């Protein structure tokens, strides 16, 4: 497409402005854009795009991307708006509006406090909601074998001639071994 102003050069810039309800659209070459003194407008637009890419999460929260942000994070919890008071993380005091503004949570507990906001967002960015892999080493706990425990009890019951108890223990052991198979 040729520049609408000079008709010679290739139009590489698209300009649109709305002043008092009147919309003006132009396809211009860089030279004419400069002459029209639109350089600043393009430059600003470019800079904001740059900013957008360098820190997308941040920008989603800014005014311009507000609707997109709402799309991604869902609407604010109705209780908070109804009461006119903001939801706050009980541990660190992070407020819902600050979370939406900064894109950063305040403390580990925020993930539970604002789960309704954060879970869909986590799903959106990672395409997953569950962690796989490295976990903190669990404190060593000797794993009790419930069947072995019951067998010991059965032996004790037989020795003490408590056959009623022994029968119920035997049934219990059979049931558990059946489950394990």
């Amino acid at each position: 497409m040729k520049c609408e102003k000079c008709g010679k050069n290739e139009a590489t810039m698209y300009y649109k402005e709305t002043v008092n309800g009147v919309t003006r659209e132009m396809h211009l070459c860089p030279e004419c854009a400069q002459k029209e003194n639109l350089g600043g407008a393009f430059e600003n637009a470019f800079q904001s795009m740059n900013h957008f890419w360098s820190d997308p999460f941040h920008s989603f929260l800014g005014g311009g991307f507000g609707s997109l942000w709402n799309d991604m994070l869902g609407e604010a919890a109705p209780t908070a708006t109804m009461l006119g008071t903001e939801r706050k993380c009980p541990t660190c005091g992070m407020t819902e509006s600050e979370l939406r503004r900064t894109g950063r949570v305040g403390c580990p507990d925020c993930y539970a406090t604002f789960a309704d906001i954060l879970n869909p967002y986590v799903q959106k960015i990672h395409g997953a909601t569950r962690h796989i892999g490295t976990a903190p080493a669990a404190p060593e706990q000797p794993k009790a074998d419930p069947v072995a425990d019951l067998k010991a009890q059965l032996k004790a019951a037989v020795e003490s001639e408590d056959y009623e108890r022994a029968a119920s223990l035997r049934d219990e052991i059979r049931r558990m071994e059946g489950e394990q198979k």
Partner: protein
Amino acid sequence: MSMFEIHGGFTGLAASSRVRLARNIKGYPFRLTEQQHSEIADKVFAALKENPTIGPEFDKKQIIPRSTEASQLVEEHLISPELAQNGGWLIVSKDSGVSIMVGEEDHLRLQVIGTGLCPKECLETANRVASLIEAALPFAYDERLGYLTACPTNIGTGLRASIMLHLPMLTVTEQMDRIIGYAGSRGCAVRGTYGEGSQAVGGFYQVSNQVTLGASAAELTDKLVETATTIIDAEKKAREQVRSQNEPALRDRIYRAAGTMKSAYLIDTSEAVQCISDVLIGLQMGFLSGMDAQKLYALEEHIRPAMLNGAPQDRDKKRAEILREATKPIQFN
């Protein structure tokens, strides 16, 4: 012999590999006071020092905001520009292979760097150091979401594994858009050398994993290595293609770059990086010899503005001196 030195394959094409784990200490909010930063740095340092094997390897230093030392550490890729700006602490091994930033967005950013293609080995070391710290200072962890971070984009494994690739011929033959698309389809991002939003000078790019949740750190790293290997093959093909199309022009460009490095009296950073890039190609394709490609790549770090210090013209002179000295053994084949 340095304890944490890791060397991988594809020397030169894969300049370096890096693994970063984001971790937060349980019981603290994510945003800390200066006092708390110093407290955590002390505790982490103490936990490492308790280990008789790796303890002696580590030093701890305070990062003074906006200081010259801070800028140098940024150029050495040991701290982030944010930490240099805001201050904090750095716990670093003597060979710079392992570094832990305290006071970034997350309490701890544990980083392991190696040369060549070695993210798996870097991850192993990072895991080892992380579990050593974790044994003394439990991390914020959730059964479902994994390791919890200040930004939800890092949650789960907290892993950012990246490989610095030298892709000058894919750049020249205008294939980078296709490569970036391919990497994206494999869950990997491609950026210019100095991280997000920066230009790729000399055809140096960083390829890294995009998601951090839903796959284990080892799986994410494997996928990254596969992706990088495919890109490396594409770059090799592009080099052969350029050679078969116009070898004299390629040879001319490489010889000129080597000539500039061998004789320039003043040279600015971007020309120097471009020359290093061209000479690297020359060494790998056999047009030049006499110097190790990895050694040449390492030079790139030493010629950055903050590393050299002083007024711009003095820096250009110093930079030229370093390059002249380093490229002396280079021969034209």
